[in-house]
Structure formats: C-alpha cells, structure tokens
C-alpha cells in the first residue's frame, strides 16, 4: 500500500530534540484529524522511541536519529524511528516491563508504553549497527474528517 503522505526528519541525538520530534509527529498527524486521546498516544509513543534511540543508541556520543511518518488511505499512521548507534543485544529482554540499562531516570517501561498506545510495534536491531522501531496505529473514523 502506498502512503498518501510522508515526511522524513533527521536530527542529532540531543535530548532537547525529544520535544521537537513529538511535536513534529503531532503536526503531521493533525492532517488526519485525530482525537485528542489519539494525538496524546502518538506523541507518547514517539517520545519513547526517540528517547530510547538517544539514551541507548548513543549513550556516550552524539549520532543521527531519523523519524519517518507515513499516512495511509485507511487512516493508518506509521511512525519509524531509526538510529545507527550501539543496537540492542537482546530485543526480547528490552521489551520486558521494568527492564532498563539506563539510569534511575529511566523506568524500563518505554516499549510497554509503545505497545499499549500503538496497534503494532516492530523492533529490528543489530549490535553495533543500530535500531529501527516501526509502529502503526489506525486512527478512528471521524465524521467530516479529512482524507
């Protein structure tokens, strides 16, 4: 299925860009006329994925993070967050609730939140090569909503 619209952004793995990334995703999603709750869910999922890339992809260095947003005709929004950092050695372990290799500012709930707020979450990662998280959510139909 071809996307109706698509954007791709690239930014440095600075924590100040977490807010930028979720605001950009919310602006893109706004053209699909989402509910406030859906918008909150999308922003939260983006925040989690981008934070993971910054904290775990590039723990001691700065690197490149990419955010790709795609909108499909059936009101599905696809969000892809990719980094070219350290990668995750054990993806299944990383998905477990409360598991974290971060400091005490991390709760280990990032993937649990992404999975709760999105319809599907796919993680591809290779140690030393980076991580790619692709998430999809089908937005509710809204009367009078734009295509």
């Amino acid at each position, binding site marked *: 299925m071809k996307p109706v619209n698509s954007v791709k952004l690239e930014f440095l793995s600075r*924590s*100040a860009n*977490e*807010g930028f990334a*979720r605001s950009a995703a919310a602006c893109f999603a706004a053209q699909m006329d989402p509910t*406030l*709750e859906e918008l*909150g*869910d999308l*922003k*939260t999922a983006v*925040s*989690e994925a981008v*934070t993971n890339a*910054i*904290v775990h992809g590039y723990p001691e260095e700065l690197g490149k993070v990419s955010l790709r947003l795609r909108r499909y005709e059936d009101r599905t929004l696809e969000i892809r967050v990719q980094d070219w950092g350290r990668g995750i050695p054990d993806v299944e372990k990383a998905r477990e*609730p409360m598991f974290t290799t971060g400091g*005490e*500012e*991390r*709760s280990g*709930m*990032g993937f*649990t*939140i992404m999975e*709760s*707020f999105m319809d599907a979450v796919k993680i591809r990662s290779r140690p030393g090569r980076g991580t790619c998280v692709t998430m999809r959510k089908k937005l509710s139909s809204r009367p009078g909503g734009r295509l």
Partner: protein
Amino acid sequence: MELTCRSRSCKTRWKLTGEIDHHRAQALSRELEREVSTRLPGELVLDFSGVTFMDSSGIALVLRASRLMEELGGRLRLESVPGQALRVLKAAGIHRRVELGEE
C-alpha cells in the same frame, strides 16, 4: 525550574508544570531528592494539574518519589493528573501502587 513547592507543617505540595520527559528528568529527580531530604515531609503531594505532557520518564519520577517517601515512612499522593499522563501511569500499572486523587 518549572516547579513550585509549598510546605504546610509536614505536608509538601509540588506543582509540576510543562512537559515531563527524559530531557527534564534528571533535573526534576535532583530537585525532588533535594526537597524531600531538606523538608522531610510526612506527606508529599505531586500536583500534576500543570503538566501538558508526560512519558515514561514521569513514571520513573513517581517511583523515585514513592521510594523516598517509603524510606521516610510517609505518604505519597498524586493529584489532578491530566488524561494523557494518567494513560501513561495506567499502562505501567502505577495507578495501583500510588494513591491518586483530586485536589
């Protein structure tokens, strides 16, 4: 720092404002520890009414506050948690571990 603190006898109320994410988490955590260790409150109220966004960094902050208050033998309560932040807390099951209420 977008954080205000008011202490009445042994009750401390914190009004959290703005967006709580990883970018602000370290500063908020340090502030929390400093306030709790200097005021030693019997009850800590985290007032979320001014929070416009929260991700899982907020969960870590609430868990940290919960541990600090446990160590003091005190009580932690979250008040006026907006819808988006509440969904994050519920997804993590935190609403079952801490007291939630309106002001």
